[in-house]
Structures are given as structure tokens and as C-alpha cells.
């Protein structure tokens, strides 16, 4: 499956990745190659195969509904670029 350059731009936008216009060709080629590789999977006969939700043949374990975490705000906020009154601060976002 070949991607065009606009699709590459869209994917970068969705992933919040900045890409250099001069590299568009490379990305387009490399990503298309990866998708071609994935396309080979489509050739496999999966008529009688149940879709797999997880590679491990195991079942989710559950935890009891108990509060086990204490307030570690100060600790966590040490690595935040900006905080105020307990809030994490980010560039203004308004819908």
C-alpha cells in the first residue's frame, strides 16, 4: 500500500511530529514499505482463526476496589515544567 505525501503529513500531524519537507520523500517511501510488509499478512488464510486481542494466552486479573494510593502530588510535580496551586500548567487550550 503506497501512501501519498498528504497522508504522511496527516499522520505526522496526528502524532504531533514535526517533519521536515525535505524528508517527506524518505518518509513516504519508508512508511509505504512497512505497509507493504504488513500487507503480506493479508495473504494468510484466516477464515477459521479467531481474532486475537492479545498475544499472551492469559486472562486479565482483577484488583479489589480499594484505595491504595496516597497523595504524592509534590513528588510528581517536581518533574512538571510548570505548576500552580496544585495544577499542572500547559499552554492555554480552549475549545
Amino acid at each position, binding site marked *: 500500500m503506497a501512501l501519498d505525501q498528504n497522508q504522511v503529513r*496527516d499522520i505526522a*500531524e*496526528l502524532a*504531533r511530529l514535526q517533519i521536515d519537507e525535505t524528508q517527506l520523500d524518505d518518509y513516504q517511501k519508508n512508511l509505504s514499505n512497512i505497509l507493504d510488509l504488513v500487507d503480506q499478512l493479508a495473504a494468510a488464510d484466516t477464515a477459521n482463526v479467531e481474532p486475537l*486481542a*492479545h498475544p*499472551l494466552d*492469559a*486472562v*486479565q*486479573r*482483577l*484488583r*479489589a*476496589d*480499594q*484505595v*491504595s*494510593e496516597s*497523595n*504524592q*502530588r509534590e513528588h*510528581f*510535580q517536581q518533574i512538571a515544567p*510548570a505548576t*500552580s*496551586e*496544585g*495544577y*499542572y*500548567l*500547559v*499552554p*492555554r*487550550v*480552549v*475549545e
Partner: protein
Amino acid sequence: MEWEVVIGLEIHAQLATQSKIFSGASTAYGADANTQACAVDLGLPGVLPVFNEEALRMAVKFGLAIDAEIGKKSVFDRKNYFYPDLPKGYQTTQLHHPIVGIGHIDIELDDGTTKRINVTRAHLEEDAGKSVHEGFDGMSGIDLNRAGTPLIEIVSEPEMRSAKEAAAYFRKMHSIVTYLGICDGDLSQGSMRCDCNVSLRPKGQEEFGTRTEIKNVNSFRNVERAIEAEIARQMDILEDGGSIVQETRLYDADKNETRAMRSKEVANDYRYFPCPDLLPVIIDDNYIEAVRSTLPELPDAKRARFVKDHGLSTVDAAVLASDRSLADYFETVAHAANDYKLAANWVQGDVSAALNRLEIGIAQLPVSAEQLGRILQLIKDNTLNNGGAKEVFNALLEGKGDDTAASVDALVDSLGLKQVSDTGAIEAIVAQVLADNPKLVEGYLNTPEDKRAKAIGPFIGLTRKAAKGVNPQVVMDVLKKKLSELG
């Protein structure tokens, strides 16, 4: 042209767990910002989510209550998007294998009929955090306490045909989840929120029109008003020959209008995939049956029982059954009094009035169900008349007495409300009243026979004033007898 309205709702209900869906942080409302956001909720590297068994149990309980298929194998997926209140960069939700499949509920329409609304699915997911845009000097503040709170998203089929039906559906869902005890139902705290999908199509046309989605409506009244406003807007556009743009809108309650949210330049593509950190959730029939055995009587069944077994009117039964704590209060009173109709009158009369006046819920009412039950017992055995009963009720409302049923009896004594039914005692009081009011007696005797029923009123008042708690029926009988003896 005649248009048909098509509405589907997506309701998010917060599950009433102690801890979050994938972490051991508290879900309590109203804490200081970020004091209940742990490493898992913050999406720090290396953390692993572990699913909360109570969230699972609650979701299954909901599914059974709406007669739905339960997903014996359900899978968590990642819905990817970037927003600061979602630190992981994805929301953990369920796409292809939700915990609850197709189900249904019945809503009551204004004309007294019911309509079945099908539920497409309900899935488990985590809530995001909260952004605050004011007060941070051009920045946005992020509080992640709510991040990871368990939600169940209930998706209806597009089967509602008016704003009223949509509001009735939302109310019914609220009633069901609060009955089940899986959601506290507090709309003011955002415990239930609703996205409304609205479209119009020419009547008779099978194909749906283009829909818009009104996001995050959080009251019964606003669901109805927001949808009405959106229907009017769409109809104006269509009548003018325009076309509807599929978009997300917000309802402004002050202006009573919907407006478009700023649309993103690039269409969102959530790139769902199964969450590698969480394994499939498998449950068996034993588990499902064990949960089924914990289902309480649900509002429809309770309403029907109130009508069938206890002779309440359908309107009374609907009001009393709509809210579980109100219904529980009512039934405790009715049991104690052994009289459902008397209890229904009191709960819908004096109790409702008190709740409205004091702006409290039934849980905060100072008069317990046991106490009101005792009051009604005393009415039934003629110890109290209606006026005396109200006086005791009001005294309890004002905080007099303790919270035991026995304090009702103590108040009846201390307020001197015990009804005098002893004819001899009442005769003496009436004789005194007549002797003290010769002019009134004369006036009565001059009243023509057919108007005397009304003229007896002042004597009743005077007698009851002279001796609080006299049985009004006995007073009436004695008065009639004594007055007729006079002429």
C-alpha cells in the same frame, strides 16, 4: 414540509467505585487538584493498569438490568488523541468487544403509554482530567483527579422521536443506575452526562438526515431544551433549502441555543487498537448469575407492584418509584403504618413539601421513615387527628425529639396532642363552649335547617381550641346532638 426528528443518546455514567478503574487512587469528589492522581493516572512510564473488579461487577449489573447480552469476553482498546487532560495520549475504552451488548428499556410517554428504546451497547472506559482556563495567567491548569474514574458509556439506538422522549430516556437511565447503586446520579457533580445526536428527515423517508452531536448536557431539563433548540435550528436551515453540517455542538443554557465547537482542521482519527497492557476480561455464567442474584427490584417492577398489590394510582406509583431512596422511605412508612395509600398521601404531600422548602433530599430529612410510620400508626388508632399529626411532623422537622420512633410518642405527650375520643369528656367540653357563647348558640338556632351544617363550623373551632386533640368526628357528633337538644 413535515419533518421527523431522530434522536440517539450517549450517556456517560460514573461508576460509584472507591478507587479508579485501573489504579488504586481515590475517586472521591472535590479533593484538592491532583491529590488523587497517581503514577498510573498520570501515565508515567513503566506503570501497568490493573482492572478494578467492582467496575466490572457494576457494568455487568447494569447489563442485566436492561436485559442485555453480557460480553463474556470483553477487550480494552486504546483511543488515541492528544489533549492535555489525557496524559497518556490515549483513552482506555472498549471498541469491538464491549462488556454490555444489545439491551433495552421502556420509557413512559405523556399519554400514559410506554415505548421501548433499544440500547446498542454499553462499554467501560476511563474518564479524562479537567482543564481550567481561567486564573492561570494565559495558561490552562490541569487537574487529573478525575482521570481514570470508571465510566460506563451507554449508547442508545436512534429511536427517540422528540426531545421529551429523550428526556424521559435520560431520566429512566438515571433511575436505573441509581437503583442499582452503580452511580450516585449527582448531575451537578457531572456523575451523569449526555451527548445528544440529533437529525431531521422528511416524514416517511427511511434514510437518516445528517446529524449533529450536542456534547456534555448535564441536566434533564437541558437535555430537553438543548434538543428543542437544535431541532429548531436544523429545521430553519432545511426549510430554507440548506444542508446540515455534521459537527459537534455545545448547548448554551443562558442563550438557549447550540453553537458549533471549533472544528479541528484535521479530522480526528483515533487509531484504535487493543490495549497491550490489559488482557481480555473473561467472565462465565456463574459470575453472571451471581451478579444477577444481587439485582434489586427495579423501578418498573416496583411501580407495577405499587399499583397491583397496594392500589396506588399509576401517577402516585410512578412518582414514588422513580427514585430509590424515596421509594425505600415510602415503603418503610407504608409498612409501619400498614397503609400504602395513607403513606403515599403523606410522602407526596407533607414530605415532598418539606423537601422542596428545605431544598434537601430524602436522605437529609430530619423525620425518619420509622418516625413518620409511627405518626401514621397513631392517626390510624385515633390517638392523633390530622392536625396533631402535622404538628408532630413539623416539630420533628424543626429538630425536636431524637431520631427514634419513640420520640414521636414523647412529642405527642409533651405537646398535648393526644386526641380525646372519650365522648363523656368531649360532652363536658362542648357543654362549656355552648354555655360560654350564648350569642353564637342563638344565631345557630335562628339558622334555617338546611344551612346549619355550615353554621356548626365555629363551634367545632372553639371546641378544638378549648381542648387540643379532640377527635373531630366525635366533636361533630356531640355538637349535633347537643344543639339539636336546644331546638
